[in-house]
């Protein structure tokens, strides 16, 4: 056992742009194994774009992205599929397949596993749905029948189906009531502890940052402005960061601690 920190996601000099609109320029970011990294930033600073670039959904103009030692954008098809089985992505609204039930949605990644019986696949899907905090009767529901929070949980269950090493979460608590959001925060920490997940968490939610995140990365001015623990964030001398972590909402969160 060594204490050296292993970096599972390494972004260097990233530049993304849509037409003439530059979203990121010279962005560096690291995600270490076993940590929960919260990515915050104002609207339109490209938090979701960064997530999409890391998982290879958006093409980048310049810079490199390495995930688990694999350079995104250079992988052959089979290598890419092998890598995809090592991460799980939860999209903002769950992005469930609307023609499948919740259980069938979670079974989709499990179908890639050879030798798994139908009963095992079903049982594992039900376990993941239960771990994501959904009631038993949600198994057979269609995504259209679920509320927004339940869709997020189902999306999380699908992202967790193959026990990934890295979990990408896009605004997991947005649109949830405070009790549901707090439960979701606890769920993420529990899963991280149980599965040694590395979590890349895009969020707006200060409560989530406080409850879950080991480190916070602030996106502003097209790059990662600063990273550090929540305590370190309070001392950052940048107007937006200061406003974000010292605003009335932030004070309410810190006062609770």
């Amino acid at each position, binding site marked *: *056992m*060594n*204490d*050296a*920190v*292993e970096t599972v996601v390494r972004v260097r000099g990233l530049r993304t742009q849509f037409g003439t609109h530059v979203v990121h320029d010279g962005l560096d970011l690291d995600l270490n*194994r*076993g940590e929960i990294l919260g990515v915050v930033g104002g609207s339109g600073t490209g938090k979701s774009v960064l997530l999409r670039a890391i998982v290879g959904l958006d093409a980048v103009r310049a810079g490199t992205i390495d995930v*688990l*030692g*694999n350079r995104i954008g250079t992988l*052959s098809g*089979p*290598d890419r599929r*092998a890598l995809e*089985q*090592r991460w799980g992505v939860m999209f903002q609204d769950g992005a469930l397949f*609307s*023609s499948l039930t919740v259980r069938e949605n979670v079974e989709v990644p*499990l179908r890639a*596993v*050879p*030798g*798994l*019986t139908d009963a*095992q696949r079903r*049982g*594992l899907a*039900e*376990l*993941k*749905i*239960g*771990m994501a905090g959904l009631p*038993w*009767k949600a*198994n057979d529901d*269609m*995504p*259209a029948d679920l509320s927004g929070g339940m869709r997020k949980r189902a999306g999380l269950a699908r992202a*967790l189906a*193959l*026990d990934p090493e890295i979990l990408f979460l896009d605004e997991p608590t947005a649109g949830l009531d405070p009790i549901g959001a707090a439960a979701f925060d606890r769920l993420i920490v*529990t899963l991280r*502890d*149980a*599965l*040694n997940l590395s979590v890349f968490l895009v969020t707006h939610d200060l409560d989530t940052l406080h409850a879950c995140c080991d480190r916070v990365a602030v996106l502003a001015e097209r790059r990662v402005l600063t990273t550090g623990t929540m305590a370190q964030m309070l001392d950052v001398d940048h107007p937006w960061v200061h406003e974000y972590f010292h605003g009335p909402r932030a004070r309410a969160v810190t006062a609770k601690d």
Partner: protein
Amino acid sequence: MDDDRFPVRWPGSGPDGYGKGDQHDCRPATFRRRVRVMRPTQHLGVEAGDDRVILSGDLVVWTLHRLNAKDDARIDLSALVRLDTAGAWELARRRAAGADLTGLSARHADLLAAVTAALPRAEAPKPAVPTWRRVLQATGRLVTGAGLYLLQLAEYLGRMLAALARTIRHPTRFPLTALVHHAQETGLRAVPIVAVMSFLIGVVLAFQGSEQLRQFGAEVFVVDLIAISILRELGILLTAIVVAGRTASALTASIGSMKMRQEIDAMRTLGLDPDRVLILPRILALVVMLPILGLISAVAGLLGGAVMSWVELGISPAVFLARLADISVTHAVVGLGKAPIFALIIGVIGCHAGMQVGKDAESLGRMTSSAVVSAIFAVIIADAAFSIFFAQVGL
């Protein structure tokens, strides 16, 4: 960190992986490549001891199938390196079935406890319904569903008429711009396809009719054949079918996507009446444009018939026109008289289907195709009803 318990043995990711530049891997190249591109090289050792099964290596979702299917009484896990939730789930299942787990490391025990706590409690399934009841239920649902559908169509027709009455009382609120827009969309843009289609139908009728009539030396009656069938039936029916395909789907898609994005709810909260703003101009545009399209279709059909008669039978346009003048105008009136009713049917079915769209995109696609099928079917039924009606009243 923690490399002992979470060995990173993925392709190309570590010193012990079988990845890029690995010189110690002496297996055949094909096998090496297969492993490299597939999944991590994860191994589960299953060893039968005297009174127990000893598991070693990785008990993860990829190696789950290596476990014995039968439940072993005692499972020794002290040599287990990696365990994931799938493995823990299997162990929890076996423990619940009476297996004795020994040698769990603290970390694996934690995971096992977490998974055991999260195991879903299956709720008792509902008692099975006997087959005869299921069949009866399904039939009953179908029948009431069909009845309800007709009722709802009547409701939408009523809503459209009520909206029309309201706008007649307050003419300033009449959605004229929308009406013109939809008249252009459903009418003007359909002219080319309707004209070409009818022209070709006229050609086909003339060609086939002349073949038959020539046997009796009655070629000149091909004009009557073409004129009556195009003016009375085919021109308007085929136009209505084309418009049902084009416009009913467009109506459902446009209203349905607004419904899906809650735009219609937003309209209601802003005091806008969806019946007046959405449904009225669309159906009204159809009612105005379908007779015009029918007329264009009739003219194009006659033109096609005249051209073919001239080419095939040598009936000159002058003779064609002279014979045409002898055909009663009733046929054209009967044909065009059906157009507004067909338009109402298409419009009401399209708008109703759009309003039935739920929150998911799948229902939008389903309702769009069902709107087209229903509209075409309803138009043909209505045409048959008209035939009987006109025969009864002697037109």
